[in-house]
Every structure is written in C-alpha cells, then in structure tokens.
C-alpha cells in the first residue's frame, strides 16, 4: 500500500509565452501516504511544476498520470475533481470574507441558487475538527494571525476533498513551533492515506519530515534522495551545483555609545489596534540588532515607524540625538536612514523600470545625480554600473527592466541601492526572504560588511537561523511589545520560539544597552 503510486509526471516541460524555459523534462512520482519534499534554488521551476499539477499552467511537453490514468488538467477544477489541492506560495485569501466562505469558495453548499450558510459553517467546522485544526468559521479572515491563515489555506484544500496536497513553501512565515504543529498535522494527513508534497528552502525541515526529496536546479531534476541517507550539506550541494562554505559571521560588539535610540515607540493602527507598545531599544554603530517575532506582532509596524512611513502615537527614535520618527520618509532618509522593505516586489522596486532608474530612487535628489531638479543621467549610469559590479548582479545591461531579473538579483539591486547611500542606520526587513541559499549567502556577507563599516542595523527576519547567525543582540516582539532581549550567542531557536508565541515573557523587557541582555535559560 505504502508504495502505490498516486501521481506520476514524465518528461514534464514548460516554456512560458515570453520564452522562459522554466521546466525541462521533469519526471518524478508520488506515493500514497508519503511526504515528498521538493527543494531547489529560486527560479528552479518548483512552483511552475506545482501549477501544472494543479491546472493553472499547461505543460508544453510531457505527461501527467493520476492513479495510473493519463490526465489533462486545464483548470484548477480538473485538478480538484481528481482530488489534487494546491496551497499557494503566497496566501490566496479573501480578507473581507469569513473563514467559512474562504474555505468553501468554489464548492459552496447551496439550496437552489442560494447559499446555505448554516450548512457551510457546519461542514467547515466538521472538516476542521476532523483534521484537528480548530478555527471559528464565522470569523473574518482579515483579523486572523498568519498561522491561522495558513491553516485556512490547507483546510480550503481538504474541504474540497483533496487526497494529494501540494504545499508551496508553507513554512516560510511560520515559527518553529508553528512549523512543528504544521508537520504534525501533515503527518496526521499522511497517516490517513493522503500524499503531501511540500516545497521549502529550509533544508533542516526536509531532513526532519520528508520521506523523499526531489532536488531541482534550472528546471531539471538533479537529485532524488531519501533524506535519511544524506546530509543537509549534500542536499544543498545538489541544489546549488557546488559545495557551500557555511561559515557564521564573525561577531564583534563594539563598545561605542548607541547611535540609534528608540524610546517608548507606540503605534496604534487605523483599526484602533495597538501595534507597538512602548518599544525601546538602542543600537550601536557597527552593531546588528535582530528582531524576532511571528508575523503580525509588530515587526512590520516597527519597520514602518522607523522608516518614517507611519507616525508613532507616542515615543520617538533618535539618531545621533536627532529625532527621525514621525517626520516623513524623506526627512528620515536625509538623516541617513535606509531601509530594505520586506515585500520586495510591492515596495522595493518598480518592475517596469530599468535597473538604473530603480537604483537611483533613494538618492535621485543628491547633487551627485541631479542639479536644480535636472537629472544627470550619465552619473546615474556610471554609479549603476559600479553597483552592478560590486554586488554581482547578473544582467545584460543596466537598462534592463528590473522585473526581468530573478528574485535574488532584484534583491541585490535593492541592497545595492540602500548600501550606496552609506546609511548610518539600516532597517533590513527579510533581506533574504525567498532568495536561494547561494544568493542569500552573498547578501548576508554584504550586510555584515556594512555593519563592519559602522552602520547600525535593525534586522527583521522570519528566518530565525538567519537572525541568530547575523545579530549581535536579539529582541523578541509579541503583540507589539518587547518580551525578551538576548545576546545572540546565547539565543536558541526553541527558546526564541517560546517567547515569540507568548508562552514566555520577561516583564519590562526592552532592547536598551543598559538593560543587561538575559541569558537564555528558561
């Protein structure tokens, strides 16, 4: 039974209309009851394969067979009919609708043309209970935490009767605890005879939970292994095509006075919710302060306040003694604040504009690049070339629209732009999110170099491993408050996780240097 093949792909290929050959001759099979991981660098074609299995994209070559029958999947409905379900890499939720409506959408119970809301709520509650994911069917999605939203995504698929679950990077935004819960739920599903495919960039997870791994690189399958048999380093090598030297950043805590001091930052959201509650911390020049927290607990808000996008209701942050919060982005930037936004595509670039015009966005008013409001395009061009060389951006020309670059290269341009301003304080939100291992290493090194040049850095990352590896000190945010403050070398993922989930808290914790960081003994 364990070896029954429920789905097989053979020689699958996909060329997008724009000519990108995203997938080339991929073959693999899925067995009943297994957890099958797919790993690979950014742009390796993992999501594309999933989309083809779900009828969102049509393969240009190759065959898909479900339960031994060759099938053609032209719409998601075809896949749903074959009990295949996809949980997207990005959340696909209707924020203004209820949990039940989200879960049932596409297969709503009806009486005639009318929705049978009572039945819908009942059924959703039943499904949730069956799979041990309790959730209020009537709640509005917009009000839920990320972990809960993730659960809705999975319930959506289960509600429609999926037996093969395709999960595209489900753990990217979860804490270790939430991840563990998720894995437990997945295990439960496979014990019921379901098959789970999951994509991830976190190789430790693969080792932890997967029965089998398929490794992809450049649109092709480069390895098929059982994780029991290999090391993480080996899988990474298969992904990247070369061995990775994984040396943690060298720490040096300078004994200088803090250059950035934030005191009692309080932010109240437009809906009246408290987003930040008296957040205080210091950062020395040449120091990285890490922020750990589950999404939705104030990290994004903190970044937005510090970059000048939002005005705090109370409190202020100073740089070299000058207040820079609550005065707008331009004022903050003028004082040497730079920021890497967490949502690269949405906030970090203009996809249709050239690398050059994206690069100059932070400093176009600098006399280096314009005089009396007239742009100096030669200067911009020269500086862009310099940055491209320095950061190793892979592109044919500085005039290429940035949207044509891969995610990792886009991020290099974003970092390049912010670093070129020689900031005194950098807020780096998710600097390597969704970037593959190889590129991420490079970006981290750049960050460390910047720190070594004397910049104060606030690092906001959902990747705890990264936070611990790069930071000098770490604060944990929970419901908008700092609940713990650690020296990084004393932090540990599991302990951080407990604080992030609110299971533990240190009363009156803050991130100031005069407050002695705690030791990580619980």
């Amino acid at each position, binding site marked *: 039974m364990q070896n029954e093949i429920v789905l097989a792909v053979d020689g699958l290929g996909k060329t997008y209309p724009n000519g990108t050959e995203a997938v080339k001759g991929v073959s693999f099979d899925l067995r009943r009851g297994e957890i099958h991981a797919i790993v690979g660098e950014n742009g390796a074609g993992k999501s594309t394969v999933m989309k083809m299995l*779900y009828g*969102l994209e049509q393969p240009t070559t190759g065959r898909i067979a479900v339960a031994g029958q060759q099938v053609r999947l032209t*719409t*998601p*409905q075809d*896949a*749903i009919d074959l009990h295949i379900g*996809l949980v*997207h890499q990005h959340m*696909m*939720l*209707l*924020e*203004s*609708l209820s949990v039940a*409506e989200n879960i049932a*959408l*596409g*297969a*709503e119970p*009806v009486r005639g*043309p*009318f*929705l049978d809301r009572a039945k819908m709520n009942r059924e959703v509650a039943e499904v949730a209970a069956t799979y041990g994911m309790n959730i209020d069917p009537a709640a509005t999605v917009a009000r839920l935490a990320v972990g809960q939203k993730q659960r809705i995504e999975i319930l*959506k698929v289960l509600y*429609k009767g999926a037996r093969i679950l395709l999960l595209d990077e489900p753990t990217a935004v979860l804490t270790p605890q939430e991840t563990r819960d998720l894995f437990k739920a997945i295990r439960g599903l496979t014990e019921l005879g379901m098959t789970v495919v999951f994509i991830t960039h976190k190789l430790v997870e693969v080792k932890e939970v997967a029965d089998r791994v398929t490794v992809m690189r450049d649109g092709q399958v480069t390895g098929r292994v059982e994780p029991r048999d290999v090391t993480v380093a080996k899988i990474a090598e298969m992904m990247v095509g070369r061995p990775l030297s994984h040396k943690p950043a060298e720490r040096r805590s300078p004994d200088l006075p803090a250059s950035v001091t934030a005191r009692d930052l*309080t932010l*109240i*959201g*437009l*809906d*009246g*919710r*408290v987003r930040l*509650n*008296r957040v205080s911390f210091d950062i020395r020049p040449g120091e990285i302060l890490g922020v750990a927290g589950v999404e939705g607990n104030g990290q994004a808000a903190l970044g937005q306040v510090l970059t000048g996008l939002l005005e705090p*209701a*109370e409190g202020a942050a100073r740089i070299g003694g000058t207040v820079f919060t609550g005065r707008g982005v331009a004022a903050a930037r003028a004082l040497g604040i730079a920021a890497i936004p967490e949502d690269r595509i949405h906030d970090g670039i203009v996809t249709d504009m050239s690398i050059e015009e994206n690069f100059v966005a932070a400093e176009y008013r600098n006399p280096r690049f314009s005089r009396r409001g007239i742009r100096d395009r030669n200067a911009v061009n020269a500086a862009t070339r310099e940055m491209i060389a320095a950061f190793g951006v892979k592109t044919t020309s500085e005039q290429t629209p940035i949207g044509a670059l891969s995610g990792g290269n886009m991020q290099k341009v974003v970092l390049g732009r912010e670093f070129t301003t020689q900031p005194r304080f950098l807020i780096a939100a998710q600097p390597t999110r969704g970037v593959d291992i190889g590129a991420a290493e490079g970006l981290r090194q750049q960050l460390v170099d910047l720190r070594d040049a004397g910049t104060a850095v606030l690092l906001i990352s959902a990747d705890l491993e990264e936070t611990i590896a790069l930071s000098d000190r770490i604060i944990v945010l929970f419901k908008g408050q700092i609940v713990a403050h650690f020296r990084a070398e004393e932090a540990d993922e599991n302990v951080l996780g407990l604080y992030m989930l609110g299971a533990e808290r240190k*009363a*009156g914790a803050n991130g100031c240097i005069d407050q002695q960081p705690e030791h990580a003994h619980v």
Partner: protein
Amino acid sequence: MTIVEFFQTLLTASFFAAILRAATPMVFAALGGLISELAGVINVALEGMMLIAAFFGVVGSTWAASVWPEASPLFFALVGAAAGLGAAMLLALVLAVFYLEFDANLIIAGVGINILAAGLTVFLLFSISGDKGSSAGLTSFALPTLPLRLLQDIPVIGGLFAGANGNGHHVLVYAALLAIGLVWVFLHKTRLGLRLRAVGENPDACRTVGVPVKRIQYVAILLSGFLAGLGGIYLSMGYLTLFQANMTAGRGFLALAAIFLGARSVFGTAGAAAFFGLASVFAAQLGLLDVPTAVVFSVAPLVTILALLAFAWRRQRRTRAQVAAELITLNARRKDTPDAQA
C-alpha cells in the same frame, strides 16, 4: 412664486413621484454598474448601454406593431423592451469580449462603447425613419403604468403610491425599487453573488479554488448591461415614449458616480441615484425661482464631490478619534497594572 410656495410644492406626492421618475433610470444603471464594479470591472459604458436600449426599445416596439398589427400594444411594448435589453446586453458582451479576451483597457474601451452607441443609434435612426433627431415619426409603445390600489388605500403613505395623478407609477419604477432588494439578495445571499464579490476582491485566489473568474466577470458585465438596459428602456418607453438622439444626457455617468457616492454598497448606491434624481427634479423646478439653470445643474456634481470629501474627512476623523481613544485606554491600563511592565 415665493420660496415658501416653492417648498410647498416639494412636499406633495407628485413631487415624490417626480423624484421616483427621475431616479429610476439612474437606479437601474447604478445597480448594474455596482454589480460589475464589485466583480472588479468598472463599467464606464453604462451611458452607451442605456442609450442603445432606449433606441432599440422604441424601434423594437414599432417593428412588432408592423409585423403583428393585430396584437395588443402591451405586446408591442414587451417586444420592444426585449429588443432594448437584448441590444444593451449585446453591447455589454462587446465590452466583455474586448476586455476579457483582447485585454483592452477597460476605461478606454468603455469610452469607445459610448461613442459607438452614440453613432450607431443616430445612424440607424436615420436609416429607419429618415430623421436624425428623434423617433417622433415612428409610432412606439410604452410599458404601462400600474395602479396599486391596495397600497394606495393605506392612509398617510398611500399617497406615495399614487403616482403623478393617482394612476400609480410606471411598472419600471416599481421594478427599480424591487431591483434594489433583488440585487442585494443576489450579491449577499446567492452563490453567484458571493463568487462575484470574491472575484472582485482577489481574482487569483478565486482561480486557485476553481472559481471560473472570467466566466463570472462575463456574467457581471452582462448583468450590468441588462440593468443599464432597463434604465434605457425606461427612458424611451416609460419616462418618455420616444427616442431622442443622446437622450441619456449623462445619466450613465451620474450612475457611475452614484456607485462611489454610495460607497459601493447596494443601498448606498441606490440612495445616491435617488439623490441625483432629486437634484434633477430640483433643477427642473428651481427654474421657477429664477435661479440660473447653470447653477442648478451644478448642484448634483458639487454635492457628489463634497460628499466624497466628507466621507474621507469623516473616515480620517473617526480613525484619529479611535487612535486617541485607544491611547487613553492603553495608558489607563498601564497605570492600573504597573507591573505589566515591571
């Protein structure tokens, strides 16, 4: 006439009837526009759809009378209504195909549809009747006025159902009132309505759960054509009994504004459309007070703009108040439990 007299005329049942009359075409068109707007498809072509329906309503009824001369006028009118609605939906289909299949920019395609309707109606009018101005030379038939005796007999409010001269309102006036409720039920109680709103909010999310996004947008655009068509045939087969070149006179654009003025809700939109009806009745009657018509015609657009600003202002003030209030409770809490911090 004095101001006092003027306001006395305002408080009569016939004034109420006048508002209903004037509002009906815009209520229909605005509800139609709302449906497509909620499905993520802003319909700038309401004007053209109304116009073409108005035209084919008249022509259809005339044609029916010439083909089946022995049938009843009501039958002619019904054939006309069907022709008008069909034409409006056909035009909606054109918009849908260009937007959904050919990726045409929605707003500009809408503008194109309006030009098409303006040109085509006059061209056909001339081909059919040899007249470019109006269909006065054609015998056309109106849909009837319906007295609802039972309702009219209710004391006090019965007068509202009396219509202009005790014969009740036009069937399409009742239909417009009914349509408000039906559209609400459709949007909030049916499966298609739920899907339609979902498509408008996040089409990608819908696609991944197998909701046929494009098909639903087709339905939404066609429905908006149907409702705008009702507004159109009301103009030429109810409000008036003729077609006149460009007789919609901007009502489709006002309907579009009503959607936003009504904050994209069914009742808000209908209310805003009713307000525009009120404004146009005022425009007609204020003339008696020697107020320049130019001033009167500016009232509705001015109110729309002021209302949009007031909404924004109120929203901002409310959130500011909310933030302030929350800050106070937060500080109070901090004082009560000083050791939340320590």
